[in-house]
């Protein structure tokens, strides 16, 4: 028993379970022995019947009956023992589960303590403050840039435009619009447009012609 440093530990519950299981084993063995007695009595009864000794046969059967009642009792006892054993084993598992739950709860608590709401609010407030401060700084900075240099920047833009286009703004805009029109012109679109125009013109002509006819009629009348 000296070298049992990290071997499984035996708890008092384990000892109790062992005792119960030993009792159960004994009961099972007892049942086996009763069963053999019963079988034997039946055999004896048969032998006495063959010898026409009814009384002895009856006695044997009575003995057998008694043993059978014992056997039944022992079955009940075995059943309750088995129930007790499994209840204990289940309780042990429940205990382990409870232990696991409490451990988990503890850890969760610790983690929550590290994450307490006041601290988080404080942190978020600080972050907000920092962000607004940063925004203030950047607006200040951008303002200072525009005020001083906006005109310069605008002038630079204008001079660049002149350099690149070589003409003044108005013309360049016209050219751009022409270019745009050309790019939108698809081969068929103008045709249909023209056809429409033509029909419109045609209609217009017809109307004019009708008007002329009417005039002529009026004149004729």
């Amino acid at each position, binding site marked *: 028993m000296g070298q*049992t440093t990290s*071997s499984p530990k*035996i708890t008092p519950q*384990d000892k109790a*379970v062992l005792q119960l*299981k030993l009792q159960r*084993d004994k009961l099972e*063995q007892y049942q086996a022995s009763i069963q053999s007695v019963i079988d034997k009595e039946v055999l004896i009864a048969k032998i006495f019947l063959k010898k026409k000794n009814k009384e002895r046969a009856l006695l044997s059967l009575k003995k057998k009956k008694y043993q059978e009642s014992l056997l039944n009792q022992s079955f009940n006892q075995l059943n309750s023992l088995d129930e007790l054993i499994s209840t204990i084993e289940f309780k042990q598992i429940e205990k382990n589960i409870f232990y696991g739950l409490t451990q988990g709860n503890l850890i969760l608590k610790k983690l929550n303590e590290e994450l307490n709401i006041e601290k988080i609010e404080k942190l978020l407030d600080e972050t907000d403050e920092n962000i607004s401060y940063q925004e203030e700084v950047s607006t200040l900075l951008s303002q200072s840039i525009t005020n001083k240099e906006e005109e310069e920047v605008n002038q630079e833009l204008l001079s660049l435009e002149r350099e690149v286009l070589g003409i003044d703004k108005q013309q360049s805009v016209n050219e751009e619009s022409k270019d745009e029109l050309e790019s939108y012109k698809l081969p068929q679109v103008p045709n249909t447009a023209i056809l429409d125009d033509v029909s419109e013109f045609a209609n217009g002509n017809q109307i004019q012609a009708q008007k002329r006819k009417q005039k002529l009629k009026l004149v004729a009348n």
Partner: protein
Amino acid sequence: MSASFNFPSIYNFPPFFTRQPNNQVLNSQLANWSNLIINYCEFHRIWVINNAGNIKSSSGSFDDELFHNHKINRKLNNEMFVEIFNYMLQNNLIEIFNNDILNNFNIANTNMNVNKSKNSSKVNYIVYWKKPEEWAQLILDWVEKNGKSNSILTLYELTQNLSIKKEPFYGLHPFILLKSLKILSSDNRAKLMKDDNGQVVGVKIV
């Protein structure tokens, strides 16, 4: 015995039953005998055999067919028994049965027992058709497969209970059972539990 064991052909060879003078031949003869004994014992699930070749079994009585071939009228003499059992002892196929192990927690030095028993006239041998390590592994596998780890098991429950009738270690001899459990115990996989009389009665396998 419902089924009968199929003896190898050498069993019907008369010189097989007499000690061969040539050392090489003798060695192969001994190897054959030890194989035959192991196979025969495994077939009939025999755990104990004594130095006169008598088989002890709870499952029924055995005639002397293993060491006495009635067909060719040959049987082993004492000299051959000694040779064979010594050969098997050397190869750890049998071990001298020592009742102490059932009572005493510590296995006494087996070598001492060998010397002691050589003088006594009657010796019982435990036959290892599986090594204690193999038995230990089988029990461990069963425990793991059935979710019995960490629960208390009685030795009776492990080897006699009807629920394990199909397991190979059903009816395992208490001597072998204890040896295998002690192997598990020394690997820290098991803890033996004793009753009030100091006998090992239960085990907790992890």
